């Protein structure tokens, strides 16, 4: 239990750092010096000091949704294992709860965006929903296939019951990390799907939904988006746990190495690609779903 609490504290503390690291690497690759790695902490601190103003046309939804969004993301984070520690929330079938708690977070964010009544935010909400529809199957096919493989339905048990004598697992890692990466990029609105630094409302997806928020509300939204990115990074890290001998040192080394590699990959992808056209995004997501289906097929037929 105490280890679970430590791991959720790690997630909460390191999440902004990961986003900062990706931004710093991205700046280095494009030949700039860039903001310091701990810049997200400064941003969050600045937002905390500001006053919260809601639009006149907004209802109570706008007031509650930042909190619900943040809390659901934290609950999702509490279900993820780091290293050998059993997470705080862990029971049979928590894989489904994990997906839908994140779904709840998104639902309230979309609802709040439409609640304000600005046409731009309605547009952003519509886009977010459209892409969420295509992102959901990626999660279920990827994590579903690993659940099939182990025959268990709790995230912690799944990752810690896989035995490496099965050759399929190596194929599985190649295939799964690709689709999990695409999922992370989509859910966290990173580069090929959405540009986090864009400043034109017409081209935004995620950012346009929080245009009218300020102060504590914006703080909660920003912080939960950092945590969400880190959650997907940890999900990717988890694929590599079966390689570690059951000791803390190896677990920590795997964690650090995978996080570093993942941040470099994110930065490289964001540097060399441009944002897709809106109509091409479903195609990109279907590609990841196809990978997930392939994964399931491989597992079923090599048993």
């Amino acid at each position: 239990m105490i280890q679970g609490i430590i791991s959720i504290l790690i997630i909460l503390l390191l999440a902004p750092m990961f986003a900062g690291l990706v931004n710093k690497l991205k700046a280095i690759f494009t030949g700039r010096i860039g903001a310091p790695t701990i810049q997200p902490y400064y941003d969050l601190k600045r937002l905390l000091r500001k006053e919260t103003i809601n639009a006149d046309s907004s209802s109570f939804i706008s007031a509650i949704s930042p909190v619900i969004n943040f809390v659901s993301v934290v609950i999702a984070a509490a279900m993820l294992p780091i290293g050998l520690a059993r997470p705080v929330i862990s029971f049979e079938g928590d894989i489904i709860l994990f997906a839908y708690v994140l779904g709840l977070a998104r639902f309230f964010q979309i609802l709040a965006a439409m609640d304000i009544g600005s046409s731009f935010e309605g547009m952003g909400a519509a886009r977010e929903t459209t892409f969420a529809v295509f992102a959901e199957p990626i999660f279920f096919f990827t994590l579903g296939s690993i659940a099939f493989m182990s025959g268990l339905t709790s995230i912690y048990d799944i990752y810690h019951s896989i035995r490496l004598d099965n050759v399929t697992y190596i194929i599985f890692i190649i295939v799964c990390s690709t689709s999990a990466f695409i999922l992370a990029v989509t859910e966290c609105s990173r580069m090929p799907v959405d540009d986090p630094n864009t400043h034109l409302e017409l081209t935004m997806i995620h950012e346009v939904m929080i245009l009218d928020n300020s102060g504590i509300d914006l703080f909660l939204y920003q912080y939960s988006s950092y945590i969400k990115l880190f959650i997907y990074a940890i999900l990717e890290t988890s694929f590599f746990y079966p390689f570690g001998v059951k000791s803390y040192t190896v677990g920590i080394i795997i964690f650090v190495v995978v996080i570093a590699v993942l941040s470099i990959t994110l930065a490289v992808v964001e540097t060399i690609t441009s944002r897709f056209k809106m109509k091409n995004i479903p195609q990109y997501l279907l590609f990841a779903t196809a990978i997930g289906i392939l994964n399931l097929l491989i597992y079923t037929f090599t048993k």
Partner: protein
Amino acid sequence: MQNVLSILFCLSLFYLAVTSRVKAYVSVLRFQGILLTVLLVFPFINHFSVYAFILPATLFVVKVILIPRYINKIILDLDIKRMIEPSIQPFTFQLLVIFSMIVIFVASNILSKSTSIETIPFASGFSAIAVGIFVIIFRKKLIIHVAGFLVLENGIFLFGTAVASELPMMIEIGTLLDVFVVVFLMGIAMNKISSTLSGFDVTALGRLKD
């Protein structure tokens, strides 16, 4: 190992279904060539013999170096535009590829119970054949038809390795030569056509009269 390479092969097929650039098709062909070479070299790592390396070496030269270079040369010479011009929605095309792949995997699993075939390489080769045919049917550009034909041929090659562990080498080399000649002829034909027809659109061929 054979399974891992076949899965990578399947991933390249998915990429083929997603992409909309002519250049990406050429690089996928090159990638598949490398995969097939590794697939052929792999069984001979333990007992090395020069004779066994003739086929992989020929395959490498033809599929990874000669054919992609020649296609690139045609693209440059004839100034072919970089978009592939599909005749159906890319999304529909992708769904079609996914569904046909699922059907093929299930079917080959059923087949593998009665015959001695390796399911994954067999199914990957079969799906490559299907995807090659789909590419030929649903794309308008002639150069893409050549690429589709080559993907189909790669599929047959993989299929062959799955069904029999060792095919007679002369037959394989003969097939490679055939493929190279076919691509060569297609190139010459396209060069000839380019003087009469401005675009390289298959639909334009329907207007031809004698």
